[in-house]
């Protein structure tokens, strides 16, 4: 897999430089772009949907959209923001599909929004781990994953872009098509909700 440092940069960041080559019909550049971004997107969608195969499908969907829209890409737009916007749109489409299926009374699969996990359940799960306090990373991981699924889709996307993609407020706002204050609001509420979900574990861990 090519690292970002091995990619030729001609005044742009590596991903942008690759995308410019993709726009010009360079298939090899597209392959490099996929290799560069695949793991990042799968991670993003895995924690967004809670399902690995759905995450892989959504990642492929993102690359399909990137390829189809290659002609419209302008290097003035930072590739990172562009692909985050596409990822957010793909996640939104998934949410809308799930909503429509729910309205029609069909089973919803793969989406975290349908997990129906409540804070009380998280608290029980977390407190169940407390006595041991030896809960390893796997248990902590499970608790945090469950806590993430209590957030709504937009809060979760904002948190994931911040944590895994190191996006600033402005970058999250651009990717999600909302204002910076709205991003702050999303993160503020997400923090409160995650804190509430993880209280038992965090208190137990620090006591």
């Amino acid at each position, binding site marked *: 897999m090519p690292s970002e440092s091995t990619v030729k940069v001609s005044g742009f960041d590596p991903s942008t430089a690759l995308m410019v080559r993709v726009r010009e019909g360079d298939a090899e550049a597209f392959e490099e772009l996929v290799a560069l971004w695949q*793991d990042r997107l799968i*991670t993003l969608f895995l924690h967004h949907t809670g399902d690995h195969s759905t995450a892989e499908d959504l*990642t492929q969907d993102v690359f399909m959209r990137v390829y*189809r829209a290659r002609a419209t890409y302008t290097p003035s737009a930072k590739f990172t923001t562009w692909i985050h916007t596409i990822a957010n749109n793909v996640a939104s489409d998934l949410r809308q599909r799930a909503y429509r299926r729910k309205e029609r009374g069909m089973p919803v699969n793969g989406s975290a929004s349908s997990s129906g996990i409540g804070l009380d359940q998280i608290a029980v799960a977390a407190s169940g781990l407390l006595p041991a306090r030896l809960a390893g990373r796997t248990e902590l991981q499970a*608790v*945090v994953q469950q806590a993430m699924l209590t957030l709504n889709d*937009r809060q979760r996307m904002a948190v994931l872009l911040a944590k895994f993609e190191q996006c600033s407020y402005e970058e999250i706002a651009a990717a*999600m098509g909302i204002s910076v204050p709205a991003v702050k609001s999303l993160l503020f509420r997400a923090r409160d909700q995650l804190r509430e979900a993880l209280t038992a574990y965090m208190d137990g861990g620090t006591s």
Partner: protein
Amino acid sequence: MTRSSGDHDLNVSAADGGDDPASALGDVWLALDALPRSAAPPSATASTIEIVALSARRHALSPSTRSWLAAVGLVVGAFLGGAAIGRLTAPGVDPGVLEQIDLLRERLERLDRQPRLPPRPFNEWERPPRRGPQPPREIQPPPR
């Protein structure tokens, strides 16, 4: 893009949110480190490229092919539309016209039944009287 009303209800100042998302999330930020980073299987890149190529082949018709198909579609559509309109708007058969057709057919049949003249050589045809300057008429004296 739709926005949930709840996202905007709260007035969040910069101080509330912190300077960056990490400080906004506070102590929760560190807890999120527990979330694993996923790695795609080795075959994933090839699989993605294959799917994208397949999709591109399926969806991407070249502009020239697309315009050619559009032109053919337009012609066929116009033809079918014209035929349909013609069928709807064409007047019914006029009985008067049919009567005349019968009359014409009857006359033609009668002509066919008449004996034909034997063919004559061209030079035996009578010459029609020439039209030219007429000889002066004799002036007759008035009756007495």
